[in-house]
């Protein structure tokens, strides 16, 4: 039985690998050069210079574990083609060797995602397990971001899923350990740290004075050990200040150039709208000198009317948004709900965070996939949010060659989800007589949701076809703004839905 399960998981992984291999010659973003540069930095320079090197503009800005990972990969890179890891000669190197090497490392590193799914779905029934596999291993967002745009999210999310699986099994110490490891790979995962903290404290350490204290010390020392392994060498060299400043570049603006579909999109539009109306009404409203995507320039604010937003504000807002979840976790720490809470935490981080990338939506959609099969409402919710977030990633792949690929990925994903969910929630009778006719299903998409999805198609037609046809290159920001705003509506809905689900 277990052998069968493993075979099937490997089958799903192999099928995804086939698609990933075919995507090797596709468009690569600057992230590709970023990672190649990190291979070069970690290979050619001593540890003490990793966070100081500025040969290339793509400086190291992930925590040390990721740097060690790149160092490990650079060993193989040098065997294949020494020019890859050459700090100066390898700049913007785009020969076949480096493309194939880096793409294949991403494919291999996705094995951690497979491991995470394997552990998470050990006690789940067949159909649900297959569906989770399909939703995670064949996630279109993962394919678009990791295997076209180029990143290592699959690898990192695998560790996160492993950590969640251990928490769900009740093995909190290992779960906490793995989360600390993930944090030292990419600090963006720290958004869920409050949830982990509260949950572990209440579930693991709240067991009577002696045991509790012992466990607290154990947990604390494990976390400290992990951080020491990561940051130790840099603290020893006195470089910790530099490392921190590299990891948290608050010199960047509130929004990324492509305007991730989060709450701040509404804030900005409200500000612009108010400024416009107030100017029309005769008030003297200054045009702001700073821009949203640029950095904080002294005291000047990019907002004309509404109050300025600082990184601290966003931090507080994220924390406030997570608080209901923390209270729930404190009152009744159930292992089965951990996945849901973590997904919620990342949703809040996405909606209210500082300089959020659209790619960050992967952090909450992958954990949500695990939750999606737990009930009918979860399935309906996931169906909507998954399509919205996948669509919001479209602007990342803006070249015409990838257009059919991204559209087909989204359509295929939607169709597979619909087929999977209708099968999962079909009538009991139909399950027994699967040969006869078509089965009725409890999984139905509501009218509002259908309307929203149709609107998505309209947004795509307008931004992709009508806008270039009628307006050409003018107002180039409008299609992006349209997509961001429309998707932000969907993601806000998801946040509210998740919040209500957690509270009830």
């Amino acid at each position, binding site marked *: 039985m277990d052998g069968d399960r493993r075979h099937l998981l490997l089958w799903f992984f192999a099928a995804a690998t086939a698609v990933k*291999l075919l995507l090797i010659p596709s468009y690569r973003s600057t992230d590709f050069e970023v990672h190649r540069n990190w291979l070069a930095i970690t290979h050619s320079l001593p540890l003490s210079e990793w966070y100081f090197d500025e040969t290339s503009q793509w400086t190291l800005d992930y925590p040390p574990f990721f740097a060690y990972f790149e160092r490990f990969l650079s060993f193989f890179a040098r065997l294949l083609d020494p020019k890859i890891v050459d700090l100066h000669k390898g700049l913007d190197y785009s020969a076949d060797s480096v493309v194939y090497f880096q793409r294949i490392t991403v494919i291999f590193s996705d094995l951690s995602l497979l491991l995470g799914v394997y552990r998470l779905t050990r006690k789940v029934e067949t159909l649900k397990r297959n569906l989770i596999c399909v939703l995670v291993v064949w996630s279109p967002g993962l394919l678009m971001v990791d295997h076209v745009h180029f990143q290592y999210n699959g690898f990192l999310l695998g560790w996160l899923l492993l950590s969640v699986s251990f928490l769900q099994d009740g093995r909190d110490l290992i779960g906490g350990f793995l989360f600390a490891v993930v944090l030292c790979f990419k600090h963006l995962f720290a958004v869920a740290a409050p949830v982990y903290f509260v949950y572990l404290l209440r579930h693991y350490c709240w067991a009577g004075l002696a045991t509790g204290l012992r466990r607290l010390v154990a947990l604390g020392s494990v976390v400290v050990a992990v951080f020491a392994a990561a940051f130790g060498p840099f603290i020893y060299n006195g470089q910790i200040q530099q490392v921190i400043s590299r990891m948290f570049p608050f010199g960047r603006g509130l929004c990324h150039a492509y305007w991730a579909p989060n709450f701040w999109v509404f804030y900005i539009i409200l500000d612009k709208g108010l400024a416009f109306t107030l100017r029309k009404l005769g008030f003297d409203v200054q045009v702001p000198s700073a821009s949203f995507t640029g950095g904080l320039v002294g005291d000047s604010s990019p907002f004309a009317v509404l109050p300025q937003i600082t990184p601290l504000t966003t931090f507080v807002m994220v924390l406030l948004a997570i608080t209901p979840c923390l209270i729930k976790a404190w009152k009744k720490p159930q292992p089965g709900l951990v996945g849901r809470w973590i997904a919620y935490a990342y949703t809040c981080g996405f909606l209210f965070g500082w300089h959020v990338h659209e790619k960050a939506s992967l952090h909450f959609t992958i954990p949500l996939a695990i939750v999606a099969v737990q009930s009918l409402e979860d399935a309906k919710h996931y169906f909507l949010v998954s399509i919205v977030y996948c669509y919001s990633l479209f602007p990342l792949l803006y070249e015409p060659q990838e257009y059919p690929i991204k559209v087909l990925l989204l359509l295929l994903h939607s169709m597979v989800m619909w*087929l*999977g969910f209708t099968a999962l929630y079909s009538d009991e009778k139909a399950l027994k007589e699967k040969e006869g006719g078509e089965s009725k299903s409890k999984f139905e998409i509501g009218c509002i949701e259908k309307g929203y999805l149709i609107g998505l198609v309209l947004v795509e037609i307008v931004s992709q076809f009508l806008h270039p046809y009628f307006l050409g290159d003018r107002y180039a920001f409008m299609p992006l703004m349209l997509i961001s705003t429309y998707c932000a509506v969907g993601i806000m809905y998801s946040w509210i839905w998740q919040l209500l689900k957690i509270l009830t």
Partner: protein
Amino acid sequence: MPKKNLSGDGTAAPIDTWWWLSHKGTTTSFLCISLFALLIRSAVSMFPYSGAGTPPKFGDFEAQRHWMEITTNLPAIDWYRNGTHNDLTYWGLDYPPLTAYQSYIHGLLLRFFNPDSVSLFSSRGHESYIGKLLMRWTVLSSDALIFFPAALFFVLVYHRNRAKSQVAWHIAIILLNPCLILIDHGHFQYNCISLGLTVGAIAAVLCGSEVLTCVFFTLALSHKQMSAYFAPAFFSHLLGKCLRRKNPILSLLKLGIAVIATFVIVWWPYLHSVDDFLMVLSRLAPFERGIYEDYVANFWCTTSILIKWKKLFTTPSLKFMSLAATVLASLPSMVHQIFSPSNEGFLYGLLNSSMAFYLFSFQVHEKSILMPFLAATLLALKIPDHFNHLTYYALFSMFPLLCRDNLLLPYLTLHLLFTLIYHSQLPKTKASSFSFTNFPGYVFLLRTHFVISLVLHVVYLTIQPPQKYPFLFDALIMILCFSYFVMFAIYTNYTQWNFSSHFRSADKEKKQI
């Protein structure tokens, strides 16, 4: 992996792994699988095409682009004629008029978005990002508009009473045809149109509408003359069916009229004079190119290692010999269908006649394996083991061609994908009463073939052939594939012959009951 039905009778089978894909009906699962198939095609399109970056002649991609250039700039009558504007030595049109019309339509599209790629003379050797993209999208759209609907038509007709998950498997096998994807979307050709029309004709036969069959098949023939590989099967099956009617002459007449009418409509610009018609025909059958070119796994090329056909015989006598051999090879299957036509037998007939043409015909290319392979995909549920091996050797026979086009990664990936799909759901095969393929000798032979092929893969990629025999490895691959194709052809011919006796005995049983 897939839940095996241990009880064997199908009543208490547990839910199989792919039920969720097929529980909403054939058309829905077809739609889902076709989205995946289109995705794979779009991804393969990103790889290089034939003749990329190799002036002065380039390859098939440049040929197709050139045809778009010629058809959009010159009147129809000049398309096949050598002239100042149309130099036939530079990729002259050598497919029938439907290809020309299709090039015209695609050429208009290209001209609208990227006029530089189809302007007369100056666009020769034109290679650009947007040009390549538009050309690739024309193939993708032709596939989606012609091949996919034809495949759906076939699947709906063929699988009227069958287990749904087997249907999904079969759809995946047909749509994810690795040879077709690699040739059409990698190397660059438009086989999807003629093969799609052929599949439509086959589906029409299964459904009983013979006039439609004739129309579709004539269109397929008018798109690529290689569709004639299937002609004996169609002819013999329809003849057999007509002879069993009350009024055979009338039925034959109806079909004849359908063929002629379609033919006249398509070939209209070239039927105004005998000269024009012959001019086109001479382009379609370039006998001066010899009985074989390059290294293709058919009879003439493989045996030419021992018997130098080109030196011993003149071209006219070779023409006659290949015609005779082809007719002889397809005769058993034709005779069988004329005397006992049946739907199942017809499908085997297609496989047998296209295989016979591939093995014995004049001027066969490696890409022509697509024809027998298509017929095999339609029959995949009946001969799954043999189909598995055929796919492997069909792909292997195209391996040198694909390596020259820098399509090694898609080749390996599609191989992997095919293996995954094949093993996702193994259909239950009825063990045939007698088959030489059950003998251990055959199994041993097959295994040695496989091992040798693996070695050849590695050798071809890594080792340089000796100076004296630069095409040594190509020849070895050709010999290996040829020997498998011969075994396969013997097996399928044998099965088709046996089919009539099964058919008749099944009839007898029904009468007795």
